[in-house]
């Protein structure tokens, strides 16, 4: 009897320790306090980073076309619930005007809020985590120049158990990947393309299929995927499947016109509203990356 009681107590202590260890391992990560210290932010370059990251596509008001007003409110229907993009304008009360640069950087590359909570991965920090911190700092300088908007945030409509943010630490641990997807030796142009596709442009978030928990299937990188909340699919954009020339890819990202002179539709139209602002050299870099045989 006493033996059993002792066993139970031991098991409880062990279980408790395991929980603490689990919580410790999956705690929201933060950048070191001096992570942004050695870089002088360049807001002009930040505007290019802003277009490459496509912030406006999700954070503009629904139906808005004004890429400078990031009032939020757009809904994202997923298998896990409906998420609403928050206000990330420079408003102090409703936006991110009151956040430090480090707070904003932590949100973008760690998926951690200023209050130390995990963000839901509908926010593509799983791609942004590969971005250069200097680019992130430039972006932040640009964001601070955009106007304030006082639209309040709308809570996500996500049901149990997906609404437990603590569990997202485990999700991050299991499904995020810090390293590049293509790790071959690259030319400088392919390297720039990789930065635009794998990090800033977060192309894989829509063009890569996911497992039942919403984690990306790395072995099917850019192979096309069902579009949540819609009947459609994003296309497979690996070179063997796509069969477009570099010129075709550049023209598409600039005008939305395919090699058959059909036009982009759906969400891709918003992506092109951003890519069409990038310099030709960046579009050529994206093409150079997308044509790499290593993607097949």
């Amino acid at each position, binding site marked *: 009897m006493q033996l059993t009681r002792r066993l139970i107590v031991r098991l409880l202590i062990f279980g408790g320790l395991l929980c603490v260890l689990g919580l410790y391992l999956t705690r929201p990560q933060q950048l070191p306090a001096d992570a942004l210290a050695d870089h002088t932010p360049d807001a002009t370059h930040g505007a290019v980073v802003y277009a490459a990251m496509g912030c406006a596509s999700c954070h503009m008001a629904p139906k808005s076309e004004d890429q400078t007003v990031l009032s939020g409110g757009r809904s994202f229907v997923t298998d896990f619930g409906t998420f609403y993009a928050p206000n990330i304008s420079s408003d102090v009360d409703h936006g991110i005007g009151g956040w430090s640069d480090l707070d904003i950087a932590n949100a973008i590359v760690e998926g951690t809020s200023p209050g130390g909570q995990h963000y839901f991965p509908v926010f593509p920090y799983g791609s942004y985590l590969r971005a250069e911190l200097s680019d992130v700092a430039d972006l932040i300088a640009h964001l601070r120049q955009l106007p304030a908007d006082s639209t309040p945030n709308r809570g996500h409509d996500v049901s149990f158990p997906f609404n437990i943010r603590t569990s997202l630490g485990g999700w991050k641990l299991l499904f995020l990947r810090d390293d590049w997807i293509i790790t071959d030796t690259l030319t400088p142009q392919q390297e720039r393309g990789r930065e635009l596709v794998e990090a800033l442009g977060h192309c894989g978030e829509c063009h890569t299929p996911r497992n039942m928990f919403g984690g990306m299937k790395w072995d099917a990188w850019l192979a096309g995927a069902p579009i949540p909340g819609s009947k*459609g699919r994003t296309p497979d954009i690996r070179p063997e499947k796509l069969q477009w020339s570099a010129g075709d890819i550049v*023209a598409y990202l600039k005008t939305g016109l395919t090699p058959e002179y059909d036009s*982009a539709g759906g969400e891709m*139209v918003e992506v*092109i509203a951003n890519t069409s602002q990038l310099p030709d050299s960046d579009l050529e870099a994206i093409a150079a990356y997308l044509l790499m045989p290593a993607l097949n």
Partner: protein
Amino acid sequence: MRKTLMTGLALCALSVGQLAIADNHISDKQIETAVKARKAHMQLYAFHLGTLGAMAKDEAPYDAEAAQSAADAIAALAGLPQSGYWLPGSDNGSFENTRALPAIWAEGSDVGKKAQEFSAAVMAMQTAAGSGVDGLKAAMGPLGGACSSCHKEYRQSDD
């Protein structure tokens, strides 16, 4: 030319609305023919855009005359009456062989406004196409954007 185009488009937009209200008996056969006709119309846009696009992508040498003729053809197409083949009941919810979304005919549809934006982009291309490859290149973006703007809202994504 410009005035005709604008009036044509405005009339199209109006008549789509009127057809939506006067939805009496339209046979399946009529809908099938209508869907074929509008696909053919789109295909003709693509054909002439192809001439312009090849020059914009430096795949073909710039030829002012050919470019102007392609831009004029797109403008002529845009000016054709189209209400006859945008019949109510010819959306992808009621008919199989189309990706046209019911939102085209729904209340609050801004198809007419988008048609006007398209016509503005077409006219800009008509002005630019014959007067140099740089102008042509610059006009491709807004023209492609006008195509996409309607396809984003009113066409089902691929599956």
